[in-house]
């Protein structure tokens, strides 16, 4: 074998291993999504979205309360953690020097690593125990603790990618630092920041463990923040382990809806990245 052949062979072998790795990464996603879609789509009907659960043993009913509940819980979590996470990330990236910042960074890394069930227990002790009851508030807080470090870290990482000389250029124009951060650094990367936030939200939407003993779940539609609240993941969990065929059918439908929500948020956030460019295209079209 000549040197050239050997080199070509190495090239092919390397490419092949890259493709193999890609397939190994993609395969589980493809299998999960296709299986859930197959099982879920056949179990899905209009009632699933519009109806509430029927009493045990009766066939039919839906998960309207759980879909509403998931959106509600995610909204509470977002209201708490998105502003906090964004500000915290901006602080770390723009001012993050010294002991306080290092401590903050360390804590956030730790928080990312805490298993979600532990966060659930924490919210249970913090909110459920003193208030003597499961509540949507407790569930929302548990979810917010899960996504806070994600939002914070993604914000920090994105802003850190912006070269220092861009900030200097803004300051050199005689703009105050907060203006430079807000109007140049943050605004110039808004779509990536939003992407980070949305990925965090989609993470919260799918969490089950921290909700089991915080928002707990119920079988009717509730909008009260101090009462238990149903959510898709918990509802799926409860129905999937039940002995009733019809509930297990609905669990598949729930899984289908949940995965659609999560993938939908992901796709939407990716779309948003393109919107920056899109807006320019549109404006150019008008001019």
């Amino acid at each position, binding site marked *: 074998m000549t040197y050239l052949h050997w080199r070509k062979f190495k090239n092919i072998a390397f490419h092949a291993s890259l493709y193999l790795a890609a397939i190994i990464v993609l395969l589980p996603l493809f299998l999960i999504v296709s299986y859930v879609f197959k099982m879920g789509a056949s179990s899905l009907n209009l009632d699933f979205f519009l109806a509430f659960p029927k009493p045990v043993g009766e066939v039919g009913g839906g998960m309207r309360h759980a879909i509403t509940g998931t959106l509600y819980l995610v909204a509470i979590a977002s209201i708490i953690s998105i502003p906090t996470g964004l500000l915290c990330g901006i602080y770390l990236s723009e001012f993050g020097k010294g002991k306080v910042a290092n401590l903050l960074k360390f804590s956030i890394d730790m928080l990312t690593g805490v298993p979600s069930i532990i966060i659930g227990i924490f919210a249970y002790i913090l909110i459920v125990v003193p208030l003597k009851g499961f509540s949507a508030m407790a569930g929302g807080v548990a979810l917010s603790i899960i996504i806070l470090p994600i939002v914070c870290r993604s914000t920090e990482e994105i802003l850190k990618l912006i070269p220092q000389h861009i900030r200097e250029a*803004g300051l*050199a124009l*005689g703009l105050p630092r907060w203006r430079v951060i807000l109007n140049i650094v943050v605004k110039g990367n808004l779509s990536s920041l939003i992407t980070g936030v949305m990925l965090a939200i989609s993470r919260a939407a799918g969490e089950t463990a921290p909700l089991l003993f915080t928002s707990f779940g119920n079988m009717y539609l509730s909008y009260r923040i101090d009462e238990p609240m149903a959510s898709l993941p918990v509802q799926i969990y409860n129905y999937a382990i039940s002995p009733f065929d019809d509930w297990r059918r609905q669990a598949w439908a729930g899984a289908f809806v949940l995965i659609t929500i999560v993938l939908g948020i992901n796709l939407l956030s990716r779309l948003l990245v393109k919107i920056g460019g899109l807006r320019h295209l549109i404006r150019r079209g008008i001019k």
Partner: protein
Amino acid sequence: MSSDIILQVNNLNVWYEDFHAVKGITVGYPEKSISAIIGPSGCGKSTFLRCLNRIYEEVPGAKATGEIILEGKNILDKSVDPVELRRRIGMVFQKPNPFPAMSILDNVTIGLRLQGIKDKSYLMNIAEQCLRKAALWDEVKDKLHKLGTSLSGGQQQRLCIARALAVNPPVLLMDEPTSALDPIASAKIEDLMSELKKEFTVIVVTHNMQQAARIADYTSFFVLGDLIEHGLSSDIFTNPKQQKTEDYITGRFG
């Protein structure tokens, strides 16, 4: 060319951590003149220039001592607000740095807009003027809403010049503004500087000795953080007092 000193630098020293980058420089810049700073790469030209608008403070570990007097006040003094200072002393950086995700037009007008000016036609007017001065208007007039970052390197540098001009600072610092430009665009920027001199004070770093000789009234020659010689360009380039200067401008050193 007037001889009133607008910016007087006294015994300026700059350190990066413990590296002494600028060593005890004393020099005065007359109002409405062009002054050039020349010297071999790494001799502290950019560092010196970056002190004049205090942007050096953005580098962690950088420290400056001495005096830079503008209108009777030492601008290195902590009581001087760098934001106010930088509105009076504009800067064009060595590397082009248009703002990300911002159109060409917005890049030029952002300084004014963030100072609270909203009048669209006024902003448009200023933008056109500044882009014309920066010799960029003809190339971008049909795509003002395209991203600033979509321009070529040389075009980006001219965009940055236009952006600095838009806020109308009485003193303009330019760090090798033409090093990324072709001869035609460079000539236009040189014309611009000569034009600016009527109202403004320009301090420009350049590696191009002919350029310094052509446009600058005064020239400073730096080596390794020391100011070797400062004086009228006509003297520096035809009759230098220091041997090192003569060696450098004749290409025997540096």
